């Protein structure tokens, strides 16, 4: 297993183990996410990718019966450390979910500003923030005339980009994306990939994807997760995307990225 430890590690997971009730679902995950790089998490369904990504901004602990050991370091500081408020962690480490989840009672504009309001911050020059966030998520042109309409009047793909814009408005240091394109058409997927490339200039990105081409297009490094018959999921291979896809060390990685699994 290749290990990639760069000095400017922005986010790091150390020996992450996860349980749901008595069930051990993730074992010893050590990953390093360097600053302003995109890391793709790939692996078959049910191997624990979503579970892992949720441990990175303390969303995991919201599930009843969830258990965890290990540490997640953001700029060298454990986000699970004593006296760390999960609310502050989630402001710094944003998240885009697999299913678009705009707030149905709010308009498009209010959705963008909701993050600031929900985390209790003052909104100064709201219009500007709304515009730049929507532009960065490349949805501005589609919605600029209907900012006050309900967010649920948008199509699924537009809603997902709205959710990305909502996260971007918070200016997080790290953005976690759990299969953000799984419900989108090729056009929207392409636009989101462009967005990812653009925003990775100012933030660290972790993205879960089932799309091998997408992983190769957007990411600099890739981690392959696998849970083999009843065993907890773990990282089988981790390295530069180039290497993982073209020169995998583990034969199981080779099988998976070439579609020979199961």
């Amino acid at each position, binding site marked *: 297993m290749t290990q990639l430890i760069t000095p400017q590690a922005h986010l790091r997971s150390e020996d992450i183990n996860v349980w749901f009730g008595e069930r051990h679902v993730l074992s010893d995950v050590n990953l390093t996410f360097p600053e302003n790089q995109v890391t793709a998490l790939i692996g078959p369904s049910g191997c624990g990718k979503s579970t892992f990504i949720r441990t990175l*901004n303390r*969303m995991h602990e*919201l599930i*009843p019966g969830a258990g965890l050991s290990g540490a997640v370091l953001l700029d060298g500081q454990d986000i699970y450390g004593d006296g760390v408020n999960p*609310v*502050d962690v*989630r*402001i710094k480490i*944003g*998240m885009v*979910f697999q*299913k678009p*989840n*705009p*707030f*149905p*009672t*709010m*308009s498009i504009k209010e959705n963008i500003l*909701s*993050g600031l*309001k*929900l*985390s*209790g911050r003052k909104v100064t020059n709201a219009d500007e923030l709304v515009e730049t966030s929507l532009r960065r998520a490349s949805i501005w042109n589609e919605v600029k*005339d*209907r900012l*006050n*309409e*309900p967010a649920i*009047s948008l199509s699924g793909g537009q809603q997902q980009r709205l*959710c990305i814009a*909502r*996260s971007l408005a*918070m200016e997080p240091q790290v953005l976690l994306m759990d299969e953000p394109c799984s419900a989108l058409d090729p056009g929207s997927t392409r636009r989101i990939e462009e967005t990812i490339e653009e925003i990775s200039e100012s933030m660290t990105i972790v993205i879960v994807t089932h799309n091998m081409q997408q992983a190769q297009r957007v990411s600099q490094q890739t981690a392959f997760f696998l849970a083999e018959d009843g065993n907890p999921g773990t990282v089988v291979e981790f390295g530069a995307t180039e290497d993982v896809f073209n020169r995998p060390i583990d034969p199981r990685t080779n099988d998976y990225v070439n579609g020979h699994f199961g």
Partner: protein
Amino acid sequence: MAQVIAAKTRPTSAPWKRRNSRNILLVTLASVLPAAVAAAVTVLLGLDGAIGLLVLFVPLQLIASVGIGGYLFKKRGRQDAALIVFTVFFTVLVAVLLSSVLVAVFEAGLRMMRWSFISQNATYISPTTSLDYGGLGHAVLGSILVVGFTTLVTVPLGIGVAIYLTESRASGRNFIRSLIQSMSGLPSVVSGLFIYSAMIVTHWSGQSGITGSLALMPLMLPTVARVCEEALRLVPTDLRSAALGLGAPNYRMFLQVVLPAAKSGIVTAVLLGVARIIGETAPLLLTVNPSAGTNLNIFAGQIETLPTYLFGNLSLSTDYSVQRAWGAALIVLFLVLIIFTLTRAIGGNKQLKTPKKRK
């Protein structure tokens, strides 16, 4: 070259219904014949209406519908026909029962409707005083005060219980939930008796509006709490995750995301709670001392409410007082209607406004 496509007339609007004149005739016959036959036999033999309905009409209709349905659509038709006959029959039955109550109240109550009946109170009014004098204004005010105070106390309590049940992970939730559930089965007279024996017999307090309110609270609380809990539970986890993922503390997540999403459900909870208690009579008979005069102080003194006014007049059982009781029944209905409309208008489903025109 643009091709012109000739407009076609639709032969049948729904091919799956296999509409043609013969089938339509059969279906019409199946719907009309049983009723006609049952009516004719009932009248000719001088049978009781209920027997005609249940013993003749329902089986006949069932046989006719199932026969025709089966003939036209085979097995699926038979099953559909049976289901339709039963649902329509029971729907109509319930509708008739309910509307006959309404018709009775309106018929008898409307005769009492005059301005004096609503605006005056009942001082110097005896059971034989002309209906043109005296009214239930004091009872309307009393009811509004007593029910209003009950609502004021119970709604926050009920919402609080619902929040505890849905938002917290405390281990006592199941116990509280079953407690609330058994509370909703509490006979209202027991609630009245409890306040009566705990407060009035022990001379803690005389009968007043407040003791009435206290007796109504245990009746309203379970309704509000359970409907609210249901409304909060219906808010998708996705929305909660979205809010928490954006760095919202729990209380902001609840206030800014969950509560607005559950708003119309919570309004419904309040309305159902008010509807539950506004006509409650038994607990008030024990805890409130009805008066003929107007009393706006619910903390002391005799006070009249609509249910006690109705009950009082009914038990006097003179022609006039029974008339007044019917009038009171109609007023209760109206009051509920007004409260429902108002609350819906103020706090109902607020839809975001869509701009009328975009250029």
